[in-house]
């Protein structure tokens, strides 16, 4: 049950990201503001995800854990290779407007959304 709520929260994060990048792309927001709002979310999303990875571990749900470990590994890699910055977060307002990076972030958002939805179904039906 808790896992359901958490997954729902993660889905919310993913949607939030997608919307945020869309806003950037269409010029509605200043990248500095946008990065300031997104950056704190990144770490909390990662922590929530890590948290329920450990929950799966304790519950010995090996299949779900296996699936989620891949995302966890991605998160760790992503955070290690983040640009030089003093605060938490991933996004640098000076590079975020680069078309490649923006497209990558958007794609990442969609993939995560799909992944979390899948996880939601899995937890609902398998729990």
């Amino acid at each position, binding site marked *: 049950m808790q896992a359901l709520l958490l997954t729902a929260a993660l889905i919310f994060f993913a949607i939030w990201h997608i919307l945020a990048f869309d806003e950037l792309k269409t010029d509605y927001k200043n990248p500095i503001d946008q990065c300031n709002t997104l950056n704190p979310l990144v770490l909390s999303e990662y922590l929530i995800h890590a948290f329920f990875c450990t929950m799966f571990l304790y519950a010995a749900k090996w299949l779900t854990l296996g699936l989620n470990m891949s995302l966890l590994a991605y998160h760790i890699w992503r955070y290690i290779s983040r640009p030089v910055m003093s605060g938490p977060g991933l996004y640098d307002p*000076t590079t975020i407007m680069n078309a490649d990076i923006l497209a990558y972030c958007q794609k990442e958002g969609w993939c995560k959304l799909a992944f979390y939805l899948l996880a939601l179904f899995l937890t609902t039906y398998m729990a």
Partner: protein
Amino acid sequence: MPVAPGNPHGNPEAAQRQGALPSTPLRREVTLAPAGFPRGDTRHFRPAVGASDVAGPVHSAMMSSQVVVNQGYNSQLPGSYPPLTPAKTLNPGSGHYYSGGSQGPGQTLHRPPVAANPAVPSLHSGPVPRMPAPASQSPAATPRPSGGFLPGASPLPPVTWQHSYPSMGSQVNHYPPAPSQPPVPGSTNLSTNHQYVSSGDPLLQNSYGKSGSAPPIRNPPLPTTFQPGAPPGPPPTGGPPLVRALMPQKASLRAVPQPSFNSAVNQEGITSNTNSGSLMAHSNYDEIEGGGFLATPQLATKNPQISRSVGYTYPSLPPGYQNVPPPSSATGMPPSSLNYPSGPQAFPQAPLGANHLTASMGGLSLHPEGLRVVNLLQERKMLPSTPLQPPVPNLHEDIQKLNCNPELFRCTLTSIPQTQALLNKAKLPLGLLLHPFKDLVQLPVVTSSTIVRCRSCRTYINPFVSFLDQRRWKCNLCYRVNDVPEEFMYNPLTRVYGEPHRRPEVQNATIEFMAPSEYMLRPPQPPVYLFVFDVSHNAVETGYLNSVCQSLLDNLDLLPGNTRTKIGFVTFDSTIHFYSLQEGLSQPQMLVISDIDDVFIPMPENLLVNLNESKELVQGLLKTLPQMFTKSLETQSALGPALQAAFKLMAPTGGRISVFQTQLPTLGVGALKPREEPNQRSSAKEIHLTPSTDFYKKLALDCSGQQVAVDLFLLSGQYSDLASLGCISRYSAGSVYYYPSYHHQQNPVQVQKLQKELQRYLTRKIGFEAVMRIRCTKGLSIHTFHGNFFVRSTDLLSLPNVNPDAGYAVQMSVEESLTDTQLVSFQSALLYTSSKGERRIRVHTLCLPVVSTLNEVFLGADVQAISGLLANMAVDRSVTASLSDARDALVNAVIDSLSAYRSSVLSNQQPGLMVPFSLRLFPLFVLALLKQKSFQTGTNARLDERIFAMCQVKNQPLVYLMLTTHPSLYRVDNLSDEGALSISDRTVPQPPILQLSVENLSRDGAFLMDAGSILMLWVGKNCAQNFLSQVLGVQNYASIPPIMTDLPELDTPESARTLAFISWLREQRPFFPVLYILRDESPMKANFLQHMVEDRTESALSYYEFLLHIQQQVNK
């Protein structure tokens, strides 16, 4: 008559604005009048002219017109619109145009006229004055409009274009002398007519022509020569390069600028060339801003009658580029002349047209030479002996004439591929290189109540839009159909109603608008300059404060600004010192803040003071500052806190911070650690190109948000981590200057360099609180920006300061297929506040054809632009990946594109390295890039120097980037007058450019290398005695001093030629390159040889080896 009234503008604001218009424009004009221009002049009134024409008193006319307009808009009823006639009168009132050579030249311009048309001097001169005049005068609306309109038409030839002048001159000749003019029926005074006629056309033509036909320029006769010829008429002399664009129409119309104007311009241009650099600078900056005066009322001359008739015929302008309607066809003078009674006007064009044709042909792929396929392994002498000209887009001549000058705006591919697939196949980068704020000798400036823009994409109306009929225009970027606002229907140039296509906005690819208040978020800021000096022990040791303070003292009056200019000073070592310059103090008061962890501003006022009111205190401070810290033993540097303090001081207003730093910051926030390891200098791995902290970046973003730019002067002998420090300038749109090993005694060369660059820095034009937006035709999109700025949205750059020495690059991608369009356009709009407190918008528009085959894409490639863009991309790659990655990417760029060419375009596979003629220098330029300081390996280039070189790649305009990458080499010991240019009364020899290889050097010669910011004259050991004594003024080779940076002025022809050549080179750029004279044993000789890019070095291939390598890869 249709439509209109409703909301012609498309945007509500515009409509609202209308009401206010009348008063504002008038006022503006007045203010604009540049200083140079006497406002009080009689010119205002060209009443004579006007009077004859018009009936109504000006006042009344204006008023009524305005009123009418308002009503029209408000009511929005189409029907309600006043009849055309009334409209005409109205229009004038609402929109005034000034075209002005915004720059200094403008002033001069006006003067000359007198001679030309003594009779009516006042008339011409005055565009500016007119504005006011109209109001007061009774002359009917008609006269006024013309006046208002100033010279707008004139394009701005950049300084560099000088060569072009000559050509212009030739053109001028074509004109029939003034006498012919009389034909002009214009009711207006005769005198005016001639002036206009003769001068006007040429001018216009010139400007554009040159851009298009750059190559031809060289040959053409000297300007001087023709001037004399021209005299008959008015001063048609050679109008300097005005915009060509106007030509077609204008020519036909005979809209001529005032003669006086022209002549003036010519002179100006010439003089500027001849004059020393400083002079040039002046005119460029100061005057530009004053811009208002501008210029020439050119076109006003036309008779109303004539123009009207023309108006009716109304051709669709540019759009018809394929089949040009009679009026628009430039060459087709005959037809146009027929149309117009004022036949004489036609004359100039015919010749011009022809020239252009050939010129453009040359540029085009049509020319057999352009179509040739070159085997680089066999033809090794591909470097032209004259400066490489940018390719001319394969456009119909009429469009090309209107196109933006390639020095301001150019594209890597002058033929845009139809689809991304085709672009990928060509393996060439697609992008733009801009120099948007370049100093221009002449720039049309428009003051109009309504700035006409597309309703959906907000594009500014430009020469490449199409007019569907008189009332509607189709945007060339988004294809939306827009209404033509009522006031745009009136053409102040021709004084004709119903000719929106002849307005200056539609005649000039580069134009500047005076922005109304909708373009301001706050009242325009005053110019604010803050200087932050490092005064630690290390800094005092270098002795830089003396030079800098002296330069500041010398240039205090030349700082761009007005009565609102503010200035302030901060110094720091381990503490931060502020200086109170309160009025009434007998001497500056120093306030020391030692709490660097929590910086605060000790007093809210008097740290930034009005320069005019406190000038004496400021001067006093500058005189004492160098001595104040001579005994300092403090070695720490708290740069971070000092920058924070500076930011806090500047945040309320915005402005420019100039920071002088001499060491690695060691205290407080932003402290850095040395990261350079000398042993690793030569390896391409593990070098620190990325910042070690984001403190400077974040501070820069804060600055950017408050419209503050930070310029960094780094004078350090030690490693100072420019990679981290540079961020402060990079993201706040500042610039970085680096003087390695600066010392006032041990390194006099750097001292001289600092002084010269500082002088330029302090006096150059500056724009505050600027933003630049780049728009492009639907289907294209912007991928990445390069340069110093903060990217605020997909197409918007935030530039707290913009300076005329900054260049930008943009990578583009083709998002949607362009199959149903034949032309694409790019438009950059730079909105800024001038140092005079005016909000202005500078718009450049570039139009290019779309092609569908790979071959055409290759034929239209612009190798310099491609190399420039690749260099920018390579800098990014070095930072995000590694230097070796970037080097590989550069080489691969050549290999990929040449393989694509070989496999897709060449039908029969021949041996050798076959390249299209357009890319014949591509391998050479890429090799030069690999050997450039940014990307070279195997040398002991210091990390900071490498990073500085990378900053320069990103921030320099293309011309200078190419010069630093691939310098020009000339042999100067045997200069002759053969093929020399003559500019005014000087003869400038034009020695051929040599390939950069030691095999071209010889011990019995002297060679000059022009590397952009530096000139090196290498004197061979066995150099002819003649050269030594006649030019260098020394007895023999051994007596050349080890450090020599000046050539003596000797009274010998050899000396005169050499000096003329060197000063000509210097005049072509806004900064002052220092000349070094090198002997064999000079320490700088290594530097000289390093630029010999075709030769082999211990770690890099020679050109031939590089070609072989590429061939091998391509033929795989």
